[in-house]
């Protein structure tokens, strides 16, 4: 009974403000004559028509595919390089300033550069995402690997957990909280790069389509595209949170127990 009450209250708090905002938008824009801010009803009406037909396959799917491939590439490359650099002190010292420099470059400037090499095709867009999202993962992995606990490391040596087993059972799990934090930053960078690279030069994709709508003054369609991008960002972040909660359950438990909760 109590639980249901609490659940009900939680649901109320979660939905109250969003509902108020949507209702306000709905009625506030209902009789809108402002060309740039069409009524929410017309945007929603457009939404289904615009995205659930041909464009889902022709634009949304290519965008998301490029995003996921680029992101996965950044994760694999970042973790692999990070493990190597994290384990080697001298190599780390040598490369640190160079890596800090790369991280500091605003990733979207890579788009014009990469398009010099690879044209405006899928390859360039995927590489842009890899190169832009790589740095937070790489640098966080280095930090995580470097900070592997000394006692645990000694323990592993005593029990001959060495080589690949050491990587799998000690180094990667120990660094995982940092790696995941880097992956979270990299995810939002990837989305930015996906959109920008399509706005910059493309023949399909979400970013491309939204800019086309804007240029042709298809305002409700443009709004529906913005909403779709927002939903995409939200869903990806939700999926990431699920992944984080699953993969770092031990870490959150450990932290709670250390804080004495």
């Amino acid at each position, binding site marked *: 009974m109590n639980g249901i009450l609490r659940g009900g209250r939680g649901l109320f708090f979660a939905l109250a403000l969003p509902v108020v905002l949507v209702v306000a938008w709905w009625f506030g824009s209902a009789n809108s004559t402002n060309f740039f801010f069409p009524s929410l009803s017309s945007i929603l009406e457009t939404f289904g028509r615009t995205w659930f037909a041909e464009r889902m396959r022709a634009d949304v799917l290519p965008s998301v595919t490029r995003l996921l491939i680029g992101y996965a590439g950044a994760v694999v490359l970042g973790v692999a390089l990070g493990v190597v650099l994290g384990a080697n002190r001298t190599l780390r010292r040598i490369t640190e300033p160079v890596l800090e420099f790369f991280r500091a470059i605003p990733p979207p400037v890579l788009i014009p550069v990469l398009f010099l090499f690879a044209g405006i095709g899928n390859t360039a867009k995927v590489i842009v995402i890899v190169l832009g999202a790589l740095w937070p993962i790489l640098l966080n992995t280095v930090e995580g690997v470097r900070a592997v606990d000394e006692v645990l490391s000694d323990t592993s040596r005593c*029990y*001959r957990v060495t080589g690949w*087993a050491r990587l799998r059972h000690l180094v990667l*799990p120990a660094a*995982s909280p940092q790696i995941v934090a880097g992956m979270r930053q990299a995810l939002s960078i990837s989305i930015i790069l996906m959109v920008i690279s399509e706005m910059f030069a493309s023949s399909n994709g979400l970013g491309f389509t939204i800019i086309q709508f804007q240029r042709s003054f298809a305002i409700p369609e443009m709004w529906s595209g913005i909403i779709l991008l927002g939903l995409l960002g939200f869903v990806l972040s939700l999926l990431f949170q699920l992944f984080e909660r699953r993969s770092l359950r*031990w870490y959150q*438990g*450990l932290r709670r127990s250390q804080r004495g909760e």
Partner: protein
Amino acid sequence: MSGDTFATPQTQDRDVLLDVRGVQKIYTGHGRTVEAIRDLTFSVGRGELVCIVGPSGAGKTTLLKCIAGLLEPTAGTVTLDGQRVTRPPQSMAVVFQEYGRSLYPWKTVQQNVELPLKQKKLPKARRQELVNEALAAVGLGEVHDAYPWQLSGGMQQRVAIARAVAYQPQVLLMDEPFAAVDAQTRADLEDLIRSLWHKLGVTILFVTHDIEESVYLGQRVLVLSSSPTVVMEDLPIDLPDERSQLETRSGRRFAELRHHVYEQIQLAKHRKGSEPGPDATPDVVAHGNAV
């Protein structure tokens, strides 16, 4: 107290399992050198339970790491069962003081105990058997699927001991394993070690800074000087084999031994390893080195 009240170690031939000979460890770095251990020589017979006790900062942990093959001594050798130790040997297990940092927090109790056995390439059924036996032996039959951080400090250290036991080592090294647990748990764990030792016939080298603990647990107690460290005394503990927290600790002989070790430690604190103390007869020191 003088030498005659306390027996010198038996000098007859024993089956020596672990031999530490002339071990010295000097740390260098940042333009200065620190001699943590000067010259340590002793040996441990097969099946013995030997305690090493010394003042804090006596390089006990350094010594233990040299024996475990985790650190390379600057000079001297460590030999286990006739084999020179240059890296962690397969027949040795270590229990560290920092239980919170020696168990894998991302693995369950079961997985923590099982991992070293996987590295030994034991078949699954055998691994499970060893894990079950070891956890039951330390009184943790019910927590296979818990994570270490869900357990109390004492229970975590039991898991670490179970892991060492399941590994089936010839020698079990323990580095102040109970320094961070509360007194009651500590007494329980001390008795656990004695009973495991009896049951398994494993050789144990137990490092501690606690004098009472060393006397209560050991067949022999090696007293170390402060850093740079040497062996000050090699003292056989002539208490009955059946020990109990209540009886043993309140006995007269226990008090005498404790008193003696305490005196030695006090001496050690004021004296660097090189010069012999005024109170300790050269005999005793010599025996410490001669075993």
